[in-house]
């Protein structure tokens, strides 16, 4: 097993507001970590800090991804190293087709490794296959990114992208929010098919629901920007029954 992510005493702000107050977290290859916590506890900020969102500022600590500190890296470099963020509310990009968007990303990553661009026809065939992972309507791939997509279609699109990018670490920011039971099952099963012994998942969620489908190795409870409790999957059930107040 290798260290994939090693976060040490991470403090971060958005604007004037301190959101993360010293996060420590270690993720090794093949592991699934779930982060749960009440609204405003800093779950999405943690995801955004790791992905390099420009509005999040790290003021202390570090986050080593495959041994390299993410903090000083541009967002695109993090992606090129194998980090992937599935967005809770991904942006709409009018005029940029989803397939072109993914191809531009894949080619940018390949160029960063001095590899040639993908073959366009081969890539088209490959993404059609990847869309099947989450039973996504292949017509959507030819449309502008997220434009006019339903909430569920956006989530499917994010997981399809995860399948295309094959990241070493995927951070999934509430991939379950706004999904009905059937869609949740499809998305969760899609995520499961993408798990290997070499990659890892950091799954941010509000509810225990998705953890019935994606079994976490560790569950962490985030409150006020700090991990206050860690445990195995039974912790999620406990939170479901008792809420966060007892922690």
């Amino acid at each position: 097993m290798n260290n994939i992510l090693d976060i040490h005493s991470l403090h971060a702000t958005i604007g004037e507001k301190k959101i993360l107050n010293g996060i420590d977290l270690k993720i090794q290859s093949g592991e699934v970590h779930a982060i749960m916590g009440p609204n405003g506890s800093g779950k999405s900020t943690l995801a955004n800090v790791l992905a390099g969102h420009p509005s999040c500022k790290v003021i202390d600590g570090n986050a080593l991804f495959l041994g390299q500190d993410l903090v000083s890296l541009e967002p695109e470099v993090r992606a090129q190293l194998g980090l992937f963020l599935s967005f809770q509310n991904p942006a709409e990009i009018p005029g940029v087709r989803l397939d072109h968007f993914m191809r531009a990303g894949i080619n940018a990553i390949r160029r960063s490794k001095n590899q040639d661009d993908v073959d366009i026809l081969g890539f088209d065939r490959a993404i059609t296959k990847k869309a099947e992972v989450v039973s996504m309507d292949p017509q959507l791939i030819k449309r502008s990114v997220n434009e006019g997509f339903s909430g569920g279609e956006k989530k499917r699109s994010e997981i399809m992208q995860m399948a295309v990018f094959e990241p070493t670490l995927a951070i999934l920011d509430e991939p379950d929010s706004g999904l009905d039971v059937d869609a949740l099952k499809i998305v969760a099963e899609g995520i499961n098919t993408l798990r290997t012994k070499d990659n890892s998942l950091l799954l941010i969620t509000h509810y225990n629901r998705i953890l019935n489908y994606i079994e976490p190795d560790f569950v962490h409870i985030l409150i006020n920007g700090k991990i206050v409790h860690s445990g195995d999957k039974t912790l999620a059930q406990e939170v479901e029954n008792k809420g966060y107040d007892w922690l």
Partner: protein
Amino acid sequence: MKETTIPNQFEKTFSEFEKISSKIDPEWVKSIRKESLLIANSLGLPTARRGNEEWKYTDIKALNKTLFSDFSTYNIDDKPIEINYKNLEDDSLHEKIVFKDGICISKTFQKDSYVSNILNDNDISPENSNQLRNYLAKLTILDENFFAALNTTFFSFGALIYIPDNTNITKPIHLSIESSSQSEGNVANPRILVVLGKNSNATLIEEYLSFTNTKYLNNAVIEIIIGENSNLNHYRMQNESIESYAITNTTVWIESYAHYESTVTDIGGSLVRNNLNVITKQEGASAKLNGIYIVDEKQHIDNQVIIDHAMPNTNSRELYKGILSGHSRSVFHGSIIVREGAYKVDANQADKNLLLSDNAEADTKPAFWVYCDDVKCGHGAACGKIDESAIFYLQSRGIPEIQARSMLIYAFANEIIKDIKDEFIREYIESFVQYKLEKLIEIR
């Protein structure tokens, strides 16, 4: 109130000009020139004075200082041509007509040409001569339009494109309107008349290029008549020198069940003003007017578009998009007129702007003059910056920031480009737009 900046400013220039033109002009053209001269002199340069809505946002005072010293007449020097974006291959064109500093220098035309040189008697057939007399300077309303009057006073050889009834031209006719004068303050007056007969189809590319860095005024007048059941696809691409003033006055008459489609791409010029007046003359006429302007530094572009729905069951679609960087400024003034009795008109207009800098400014002003019930009119205007959340989204997929920005800017422009049906022209305009966008993104 009429204001004359300099009384009889052009008398002297005209008397010089007339020494040559009088040898060529038929009598009817001589009288048109004289009338226009009177109008130009009495109007003077338009000013941004109070109440002059048309020129409220565009100040052209500077023209008086630097221009009007040298009017292009009939002598032309050939200059080498270099183009830094993909050029049109001659074999994909029906015909290419070249203007140099406002004067049509194509003197001989190919066998199947539909073009003749206005005022060149050796070339013009009796039928074409009739078309000229019927329409030249009949479409453009000169009374309130200084620049159109100036052009009509001083135009030299122009181009008459006459396409008879039942004629289908598949390849485009390309007008290459080139500025190369080395003399500061040159005024060029390109003149184009397009007459499309009944049941005919044609494509026109009107391209403005510059091979000089001097200050000049390119002051074009284009008049277009589209006969019953005919279609005209009209593409204008303007890449004048960054020092230049580029003014166009275009008037289009659309007859019954005829269709006019215009795609205007403006990337050059220091001050650009396009007046486009489209009139649906008969029932069933329709128009689609698309435009894209990309400006930076201190460029100023002003589009005044009037669609006059004079008849019932006519429709129009209008979409202009602007990309502004640096200290540039755009003005879009779109008027839609629906005349009395013009029922079932369907008109829609939109102007959208993408501001890449805090110092750029876009003024957009829609105006509706509706004198009839039972019509459908809509408009939209938008002005915004690049969506930073979309930039981050692209970056999170491995795409470097600069590439992400250019993808979004290009996508904004592409709404116009993807609408161009002809693949060959679409690629050409795409390369034209790309050329400017690359410059714009580099400077940032």
